[in-house]
């Protein structure tokens, strides 16, 4: 079974990328969180397949941590926060579904062209994971820019973080366990704090639309 997981590496990679691409034209909060969970689980399996392929024992705890924290805890935490805040199921965006998808695909194609010129592409542990990581992080940035509600921006940040986790896998592979634990804790704390803030925003302004957050000007 373990060997099968290693063989399925390209499938995990494709799921990891497609979850972030599909997130862009998704405007239902639950669907968006499912896509994030899906992306995180694919990332965990990707790390697991790396661990099997390279016989790297230290990657197993990382895979388990990713699966537990990003695949289960964070989506559950956010689902709970959104339910408690009474926010609308429908999320706000500056673009409709079709243009959102078009912009994302165009951005990913540009990323694919640019990545060939990166100096570290040749020396990366896995060229395709390197591409995926940058593509997913980029999709996260696009989501933060194009979306107009606090929940989508939060999920955008989480996609960026997933992209960076994959980037670390593609470049240096080995990060000390203590640092990994630190990064997981910080991400979990950041998300908890963002969830709390989004709840307060919803409570104070009666909407999660970021258009209401334009009080502070010069």
């Amino acid at each position: 079974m373990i060997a099968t997981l290693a063989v399925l590496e390209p499938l995990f990679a494709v799921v990891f990328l497609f979850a972030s691409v599909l997130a862009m034209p998704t405007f239902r909060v639950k669907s968006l969180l499912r896509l994030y969970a899906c992306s995180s689980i694919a990332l965990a399996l990707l790390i697991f397949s790396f661990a099997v392929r390279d016989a790297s024992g230290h990657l197993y705890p990382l895979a388990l941590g990713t699966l537990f924290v990003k695949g289960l805890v964070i989506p559950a935490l956010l689902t709970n926060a959104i339910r408690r805040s009474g926010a609308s199921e429908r999320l706000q965006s500056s673009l409709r579904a079709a243009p959102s998808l078009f912009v994302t695909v165009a951005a990913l194609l540009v990323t694919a062209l640019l990545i060939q010129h990166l100096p570290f592409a040749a020396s990366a542990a896995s060229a395709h994971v390197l591409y995926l990581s940058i593509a997913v992080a980029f999709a996260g940035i696009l989501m933060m820019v194009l979306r107009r509600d606090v929940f989508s921006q939060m999920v955008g940040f989480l996609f960026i973080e997933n992209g960076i986790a994959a980037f670390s896998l593609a470049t240096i592979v080995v990060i000390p366990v203590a640092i990994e634990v630190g990064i997981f804790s910080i991400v979990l704390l950041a998300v908890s704090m963002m969830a709390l803030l989004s709840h307060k925003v919803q409570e104070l302004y009666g909407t999660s639309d970021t258009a209401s957050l334009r009080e502070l000007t010069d």
Partner: protein
Amino acid sequence: MHLTLAFLALLATPLFSWLPVVPVKAVRGLGVLAASVAAGFVWTTAFPVLLGRVEMRSLGIWFVDPMSALVASLIVLVYLATAVVSVRYLGHERHERLVTDRQVRLYYVMMHLFAFAMLVTALANHLGVIWFGLEATTLATTCLVAFYAKDGALEAAWKYILLCSTGIALGLVGILMVGHAAAVGGLQHADFLYLDTLRMHASSLSPDIMRWAFVFVFVGIGTKVGFVPLHTWLPDAHSKTPSPISAMLSGILLNVAFVTILRFKGVTDLALGGTEWTEKFFLVFGILSVLLPGFILLIQRNYKRMLAYSSIEHMGLLAFSVGLGPLGLVPAVMHMVGHTLAKSALFFGAGEILLRWKTTKLDHLPAVFTHAPRTAVLFLLAILGILAMPGSTLFASEYLMVGYGINTHLVSTLIVLLGLSLVAVGMMRHTLALLFEGAPAATEVPPAVESVREPWTLTHAVMAGELALLGAAGVFFLLPSGLAFATRVAQSISSVAL
């Protein structure tokens, strides 16, 4: 050992502060005690290194060279000052029922964790720990930016956590690239992310990868520094936070983030075999960060936002100084010290005004000097200090900076001088209006307040102490021994001999 004790004090105090059995008044006293203990331990370790009596100390994951010793010393100084001012500030707000006991506890928990995270960032030798510390500063202070949960505080907190966390995430990409360069360069896994090892083996790091890494680190952590155009969160966050915390945010956190970029610059310069490539980034972002606040300060009618834009301008000056060339690090060191002292004093003063009139808008304030002469005089002195009047530390730093700039980058220096002139005109105009004119539509001062002669408070004592230090450091840096001190600190982070 001393550092461990300081860290323990900073970690234990938040726990005690949160315990319901500890009375709120005791929490405030405990804050001062913890800050004093931490300051004592940090200064005991840092001063011998700063004074050159002990060589730099590398303690594995920690690293105490003159630059980190200076930054750590400034962190605990501002932390101690903030703890003292908070006794007065929160005592007053609690007395007026503006904050609850729970909020007071939260304030202290986060204040101690914030100081802890800054010390970790300043003293860490491992890039992962530096990243961890920087992100922890964001998380601790987000709670403090959203402290009042009204009047735009939530907006400011949302922008702050989202932009800074994204920025620091990009910084992590840069750190990973450095690790990749180290791996490709043949360094052992265990040594990948240690700054001292990276500096030692910089020649084996791929220059191309290091260039990319530096771009990510500069943009990512530059967001935290508040370089224009990555600064949009800064005026909101620094103006909405309780004033003593604004002093920590503006006075020292920006320096901590700036020095982190300087550490990466040192490694990148060594890998590239020269300083010119990285200096261009500092020069361009520096000029932008001086010019934009210059224009905005002409129209800014909120005194806390005015101080926040002034912080962006001073980070711009620091970057400009570093961008001028290797010797620019020397005035940058002096400037860092001066800005920390003057800006924290200014935010403490702003807090006194805010406590009394409950507004940050110039259009709603009467002439402050008439009702609060002590605050007004100290605030004015701090403004003169931050505008680099002779006698201030910032006069010494800007004098050297401009002198060096005229010799190396004449046009850029003239542009910066234009920006500085705009800043000076804008800030002086608004300050004089705030202190001596008062707005026609000023809020009526409640009779009870107006009739009470302004007492000498803890805040005034702290401001006076900081201003005395600002003047003393200003004189010291003009002496040969002061110049030698600044050069030694700058040398510890420079990639070339100064």
